[in-house]
């Protein structure tokens, strides 16, 4: 009988090529490998930064030198040799001051392959985009339209020059330089990233989006994103990532800081599809990311992530609920396959009164991968009437993978209400047969069931992204389903 089993699917998955694994031959300027104070200074100088910025970096670098790489996560990998990485690589033809029409045609070609059509986006008129290749922002669209509303959306290097007061005021306030090993490294060597400021009371009329791409070999990507939503404003921010297939591991250590002032709301969505390594576990991106948001009174930050890529993921988008009545949300789908390892989750730090947080995490493990949820819900003594609801569900496909749940719950206030639920299951044979009986082939049935499993989170993504994310889920788990 022509039976398509989960085993078949597994084999297909293992042989599935990473669709974004091409390398574009861009002329690049790349720094020699290694890291010391001179390199940090050189990066700062290269970018024409003011002295305070250089000092800030040096301070971070000195802190980093004192720190050791964390080992508590449930991931095993060969630690990167930080002296074997080049900390700056830029496509030569990129010039952030030019418009899209001036962008290197090869770059545009690359984006076409990635499925990002900048022209298309232009026409659709609903997503403004910043694009970061290796370490440098190469194009920011819609600057003018946004400018009319007073919204600042540009690369962070430009912002350091054009809006130094804003950058200086907020940079490092949510993720301090010495927050952790990778954050310190990032603070020292970050070369670009996006900056966004939404003025008081402004609802950003379109989705803001950044696409990150590691192109050059032997480089690390260290981007820094800073989003500030001033009082009563709203912004929805999207982030996508890809990298070419390479045998060696590439390092990505980003920092994202969100600041939601009183009554502001930030929605931050990520579709992370860095190269996961090949089916034998060779190569792939090490994704060590620090993301954190600060909520002032009545503010709301919502993180949504679809994590399908990277060889190793270490990432905990968090919310510091400082203001009373502030709200933090974390919605996550993490898919691991082959030899991928993900240790991801969130921290909800309840400091203010009547603060609320919701955590929905869906982990899907296949192949020989390990998928861990790690989350902290902390209720401080001052946080009267704090509420948390967490739901962590894991789906296992095959018997060579692992699903792990490590929730930490720390409550120091008696009025807190915390609920945590977790389940682990597999796709039921009866479910697949039921679908088959209605004419749906097994491959499609599994896609359908996985989508259903992830639906609570998929629903949280902005429309433009939801379709893409759904596609990505299907690709990373099973092939071309439309």
């Amino acid at each position: 009988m022509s039976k398509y089993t989960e085993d078949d699917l597994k084999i297909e998955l293992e042989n599935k090529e990473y669709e974004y694994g091409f390398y574009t031959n861009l002329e690049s300027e790349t720094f020699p490998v290694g890291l010391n104070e001179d390199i940090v200074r050189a990066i700062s100088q290269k970018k024409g930064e003011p002295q305070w910025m250089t000092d800030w970096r040096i301070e971070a670098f000195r802190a980093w030198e004192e720190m050791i790489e964390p080992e508590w996560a449930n991931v095993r990998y060969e630690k990167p040799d930080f002296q074997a990485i080049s900390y700056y690589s830029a496509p030569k033809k990129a010039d952030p001051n030019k418009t899209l029409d001036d962008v290197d045609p090869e770059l545009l070609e690359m984006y076409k392959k990635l499925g990002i059509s900048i022209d298309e986006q232009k026409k659709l008129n609903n997503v403004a985009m910043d694009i970061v290749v290796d370490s440098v922002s190469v194009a920011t669209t819609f600057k003018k339209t946004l400018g009319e509303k007073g919204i600042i959306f540009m690369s962070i290097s430009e912002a350091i020059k054009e809006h130094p007061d804003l950058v200086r005021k907020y940079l490092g306030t949510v993720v301090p330089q010495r927050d952790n090993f990778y954050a310190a490294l990032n603070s020292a060597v970050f070369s670009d990233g996006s900056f966004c400021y939404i003025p008081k009371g402004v609802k950003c009329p379109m989705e803001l989006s950044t696409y990150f791409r590691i192109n050059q070999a032997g480089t690390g990507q260290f981007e820094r994103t800073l989003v500030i939503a001033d009082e009563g404003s709203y912004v929805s921010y999207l982030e996508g990532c890809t990298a070419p297939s390479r045998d060696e591991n590439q390092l990505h250590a980003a920092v994202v800081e969100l600041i939601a002032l009183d009554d502001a709301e930030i929605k931050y969505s990520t579709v992370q599809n860095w190269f996961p390594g090949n089916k034998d576990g060779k190569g792939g991106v090490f994704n060590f990311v620090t993301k954190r948001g600060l909520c002032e009174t009545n503010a709301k930050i919502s993180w949504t992530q679809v994590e399908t890529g990277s060889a190793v993921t270490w990432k905990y988008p968090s919310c510091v609920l400082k203001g009373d009545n502030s709200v933090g949300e974390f919605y996550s789908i993490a898919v691991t396959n082959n030899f991928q390892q993900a240790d991801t989750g969130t921290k909800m730090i309840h400091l203010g009164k009547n603060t609320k947080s919701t955590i929905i995490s869906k982990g899907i493990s296949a192949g020989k991968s390990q998928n861990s949820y790690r989350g902290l819900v902390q209720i401080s003594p001052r946080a009267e009437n704090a509420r948390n609801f967490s739901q962590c569900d894991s789906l296992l496909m095959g018997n060579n993978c692992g699903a792990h749940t490590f929730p930490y719950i720390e409550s120091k206030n008696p009025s807190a209400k915390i609920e945590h639920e977790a389940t682990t299951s597999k796709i039921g044979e009866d479910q697949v047969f039921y679908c088959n009986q209605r004419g749906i082939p097994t491959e499609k049935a599994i896609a359908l069931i996985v989508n259903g499993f992830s639906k609570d989170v998929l629903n949280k993504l902005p429309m433009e992204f939801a379709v893409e994310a759904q596609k990505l889920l299907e690709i990373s788990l099973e092939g071309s389903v439309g």
Partner: protein
Amino acid sequence: MELKEKLLSSFMAFEERVDVHSELHDVRTSAIKNFEIKGFPTKKEEAWKYTSLNAILKNDFTVFPKKDSAIEFNQVKKYFIHEIDTYKVVFIDGIFSSHLSSTTHDGIDVCLMSSALTKPKYKMVIDNYFNKIASKDDSLTTLNTAFSLEGAYINIPKSKVADKPIEIMYFSTGNEAALMVQPRNLVIVGENSHVQIIERHQSLSENPVLTNSVTEIFAQKRAIVDYYKIQNDDLEANLIDNTYVSQQKESHVSVHTFSFGGNLTRNNLNFYHFGERLTSTLNGITIIGEKQHVDHYTLVNHAQPNCESFQDYKGIFSDRSTGVFNGKVYVEKEAQKTNAFQKSNNIVLSDKASINAKPQLEIFADDVKCSHGCTVGQLDETALFYMQQRGIPKKEAKALLMYAFSNAVIENIKIPELKKRITTIIANKLGVKLGFDL
């Protein structure tokens, strides 16, 4: 002298006192070496993140009591389940009290660890079971192993139902200013056999006590073991209770832990599976106040197919008390068709009380049903108001609600007199006089 140093230097003296030439010498020596390297655990270790021993270790504990102390049964009757007949293995300041005990060799062995460790007729059993499931890596367990000498030895042979429950009782008299004791229990339950055991540590004075206890339980094929731990000690008593359970196929072991007393209590409860279709049950009720601290650290290691485990822990925390629940369910690749459930429900009653929970699942098999749930909350105000409206005073209404909250665990107590005793302790703890005949 720091306690660690004191223990290390006492080890030689201890070895001199017991038989140096016995084969246990090697076991003890390698255990003390492990403790010497590891030392007492600190908050830096993930497993001890929420529990600090620092304050306790500052006491100048006597490691060996200087003199024998005697107690009359009437003084301590209330600590026994005296309404029913039981076998009793009783220790005073770590030393066996034949006067208070009621042991047996009639068909089953309920006696002393010290004789089992030294008498030739037990040698084979000791060789096969002693220190076989207890960790050789955990610092406190190895510390106990190094000084293992006294405790309860229970061996129920094949197809025997112990005719009455067994009570294991550890009293400390306070005749030493501060006392550290390290009881070591070994329980072997043969094929098709059944036993019920009640264990209690009780301090009779206000002098500080530190008990570092290790119990190894071996349940053979289809054996049934019900083990009850009553922790309702004095507020100066500290207990580190390490229990290791080894289960063979189709056995059923349940450990019920009732934590009401003590200053600091840490329960390390570990279940290891060596056969299919077996069941492990871990239940707990914690009701504490003042500055009490109770930490439940559980592990169920599912290594075989078709096994089940159930964990249900209820906690009520008032005053400045702190509670910790750290439960881990580990499902190995071979353990298909595992059903593992874990639940931790907590009620926090005061501003200064706090609760830390870390319910973990680590799963490597795909065809499993595993879930965990953890809640932290308060008593239902609406229910409270409803009861008050019907004339039940607030205090009693609260107590009733809390009792109802713990009831699922109380219901699992299979010895009626014990159930009644626990219910009474709960009522006392909640400061009410209620029959609780719900």
